[in-house]
């Protein structure tokens, strides 16, 4: 019973998705694989006007134009990388949701790791200090001080 429900739910979701996709923009895809590729590609690209929406989601006129352009470029046999480059050449790397790893994006890519390492260093230093302070004749004065420092 449950599995039947699940199948029904899945089917209705799929149909709903297909219906919405067609209601917005019926593009003449030659097969399902091409449609999936198109949807995957437009979901990876950012609409330049609305800033925080993908080209796939956005209803802005420029997003519609760029979706059409991507479809046309696909029809001309361009690869995903070529299409992305086409857009980067015109709208800058802003359109890529995944910025490329380059010198000016190192901080962006590895900054979080750097912060994590600094944090780990602080934790290790604190633990060492506390264990050193606690072992030899643990002075109560230091301990109360430490607790007062509990920020």
């Amino acid at each position, binding site marked *: 019973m449950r599995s039947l429900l699940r199948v029904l739910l899945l089917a209705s979701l799929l149909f709903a998705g297909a219906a919405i996709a067609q209601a917005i923009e019926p593009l003449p895809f030659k097969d399902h694989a091409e449609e999936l590729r198109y949807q995957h590609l437009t979901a990876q690209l950012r609409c*330049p*006007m609305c*800033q925080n929406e993908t080209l796939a989601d956005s209803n802005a*006129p*420029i997003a519609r*134009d*760029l979706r059409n*352009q991507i479809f046309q470029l696909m029809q001309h046999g361009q690869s995903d990388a070529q299409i992305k480059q086409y857009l*980067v*050449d*015109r*709208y*800058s790397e*802003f359109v890529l949701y995944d910025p490329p790893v380059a010198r000016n994006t190192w901080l962006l890519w590895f900054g979080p790791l750097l912060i994590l390492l600094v944090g780990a260093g602080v934790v290790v230093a604190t633990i060492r200090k506390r264990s050193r302070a606690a072992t030899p004749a643990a002075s109560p004065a230091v301990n109360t001080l430490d607790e007062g*420092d509990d*920020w």
Partner: protein
Amino acid sequence: MTRLLPFIGFLLLAGLLGFGIWWNTGHDQTAIPSPLINKSAPDFKLPLLYEPTQTISRESMMGKPYLLNVFASWCIECGVEHPVLQAEAPTLGVALVGYNYKDAPDDAKAWLAAHGNPYSVLMTDTSGQTAIDFGVYAAPESFLVDAHGVIRYKHIGPITMDVLNNELKPAIAALQQEPR
């Protein structure tokens, strides 16, 4: 030292957030820097609004610098900058070229008849296809193109008196000082 640590942390965080505020007041967050600056303007060939049988192209515009202004009758911000263009076009020192973007020619003509026409050349891109090559995403946008057909400056959004005096005119002056 350990007692100062939270304070130092606070100062660092406050510094970072303060920098963020300072940065964002000086920069328009919605403006994407164009990768076309100091690159050759894309090839275009577009019909004139008033004489659609005639076209102009990147080549036919070469030889003199010009300011390409992307506008449309449906664009509200274009109405904001229009009085500035209307008043200042003769003092620019370069030709003001209109780029009518995704507009019905009749709407554009009616709009210009109502608000005035500051453009010395006026072309129309009804499909918006060429505008993609220019990286246009929101009218109004303006491109300063030099005598060799290279884009030297771009402004996204309406040209206000501030933008005109602080950015556009210095950019034009820099062009005019260059040896031809």
